[in-house]
């Protein structure tokens, strides 16, 4: 059939036939070139500023002496507490919606729609909630705890939605067999469903946390400072994170600070892209296992 076609078609027809494929290739290429240019720009500007002194120094007005020690520590503190709040609550909400709640009741449907919509709310709105509730209403102040609670709310939809997907993907036979030998709902979930769904849930947690690491808008509202010359020692201390440090340095007009920002971005990207690649790899591996 195709040979018959090709003899008859004009050059213009053939061009039309290929133009969609070409347009698709160029569109994808555009996206990938942007990604490449971004990484290249960051690498070229920031590479020479990466040093032990930079990683282990405190922020300074002088670019040559500035470092990101407080930002690294702040990020680790914040992520630790965010994980502490968001992982249990997220997984348990997923379990409730998938295993306990009656799927037909309007309450369950409402909660599901609500979570889907929460995922699309801009992060800065969460920041406003955190400012009004965590910082002012319950007087946590401009602390790591207030930031971590806000971040937890922000990534909760991601953790919940991936937990639900992971539980859905568990084979029906496992569930039926467990109920068949008389296990209770709690036992089925704890000993059979969760171990099976574990890789999927971990993927969700990693994706959520890697989003939280790069997110800085809500923290600006919470009042994370950009000039912190100390390492936080407890959950109620003030803090800064890598993303805010970058924002502060990019805002300054001097090019030297832009290079510092680029060096900080390398550290930040090492965190987020590393975690993202891990999650993507886990998911591809899981899909292969299923086939």
């Amino acid at each position, binding site marked *: 059939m195709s040979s018959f076609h090709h003899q008859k078609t004009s050059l213009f027809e053939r061009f039309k*036939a290929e*133009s*969609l*494929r070409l347009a*698709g290739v160029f*569109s994808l290429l*555009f*996206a990938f070139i942007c*990604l490449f240019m*971004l990484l290249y*720009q*960051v690498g070229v500007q920031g590479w020479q500023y990466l040093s032990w002194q930079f990683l282990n120094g405190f922020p300074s007005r002088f670019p040559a002496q500035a470092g990101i020690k407080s930002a690294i520590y702040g990020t680790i503190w914040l992520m630790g507490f965010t994980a502490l709040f968001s992982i249990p*609550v997220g997984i*348990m*909400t997923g379990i409730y*919606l998938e*295993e306990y709640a*009656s*799927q037909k009741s309007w309450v369950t449907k409402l*909660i599901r729609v*609500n*979570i889907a*919509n*929460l995922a*699309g*709310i*801009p992060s*800065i709105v969460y*920041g*406003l*909630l955190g*400012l*009004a*509730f965590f910082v*002012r*209403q319950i007087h946590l102040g401009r602390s790591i705890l207030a930031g971590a609670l806000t971040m937890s*709310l922000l990534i*909760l*939809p991601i953790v919940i939605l991936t937990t639900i997907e992971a539980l859905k993907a568990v084979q*029906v036979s496992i569930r039926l067999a467990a*109920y068949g030998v008389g296990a209770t*709902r*709690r036992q089925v979930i704890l000993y059979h469903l969760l171990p099976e769904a574990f890789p999927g849930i971990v993927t969700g947690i990693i994706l959520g946390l*890697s989003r939280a*690491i*790069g*997110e*800085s808008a809500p923290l600006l*509202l919470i009042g994370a400072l950009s000039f912190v010359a100390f390492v936080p020692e407890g959950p109620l201390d003030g803090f800064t994170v890598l*993303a805010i440090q*970058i924002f502060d340095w*990019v805002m300054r007009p001097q090019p030297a600070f832009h290079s510092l920002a*680029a060096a900080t*971005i390398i550290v*930040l*990207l090492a965190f*987020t892209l590393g975690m*993202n690649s891990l999650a*993507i790899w886990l998911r*591809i591996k899981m899909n292969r296992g299923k086939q």
Partner: protein
Amino acid sequence: MQMALGKTRRVEQPVSPMEPSKSRKSRNLGLRRSWRSPSSTPLESFATFLVWSCSLVSVATTIGIIVFLTREAVEFFQQISIWEFITGTQWSPLWEPKHFGILPLLSGTLVVGVGACLIAVPIGALSALFLSEYTAGSWRVGMKSLLEVLAGVPSVVYGFFAVTFITPQLRTFIPDLEVFNALSAAIVVGIMIIPTIASVSQDAFQAVPRELREAAYGLGARKYQVACTVVFPSALSGFIASVILGFSRAIGETMAVSLAAGATPNMSWNPVHSIQTMTAYIVQVSLGDISAGTIEYSSLFAVGLTLFAMTLGANVVANFIVQKFQGSRV
């Protein structure tokens, strides 16, 4: 599946053969415990209660956002009339004379949002069509993963990219481009939302039933004809949903926009000028030290409420379209 489980559980519920009130003996025989289903032991009830209470957190979040945003916004509207807020064409809350008309912020937000969509919609849609119709297997997985890497780059990094790369490059051939400008912000936000649009539309394109494609091929259609006249039209609702989601992400975008577009609220539709979006205003205020109770503080929440209403509206519409679309397919 869920229904079947629900039914078995209902059977498990304490089904006592004798009414306890009628036969007191049953309690003395110690049989009562064995009649109870294992799903009603304290541990089981506690587990149920625990997961149920966790699911309330997400509901509480939504309620919290609405309550706190509204509460502060009400304080704002006690001093500024809603009419002035909606129709005012000047926004200058941080210097005298103070004006609180949100139109300049809205126009700035729309310039960036629409500009970003102009870039991201064609590129995202063509990428999605290409991925779903022209690729398969590990190529598709690989390219989708690369797009996801693009989505995983933090927003502040895009801001850096806009300030240090896009703006200087643009200035070489647009000489009167300001240092902070809407064009650069729109381009960088466009790049950011390409993955959103591409991945949602690709899901929609791939969900088009195989029979439709095969019928078209059987009639002698070529691949591009199938893609343009069969796949795209029947997945149109999913594509529209992807555009709405992308747009709502673009107007909620904060860090990249406040770095690239500057902080000059004006009604200019010319993208070479510096503008201010709603999100950038919130950032600008939170960078200074604003104490609670002032008009600046409550103006944050009035602007935030506007932004929340816009994005929530867009998301509800998009999710509704996606749901309906999936419902009609399966």
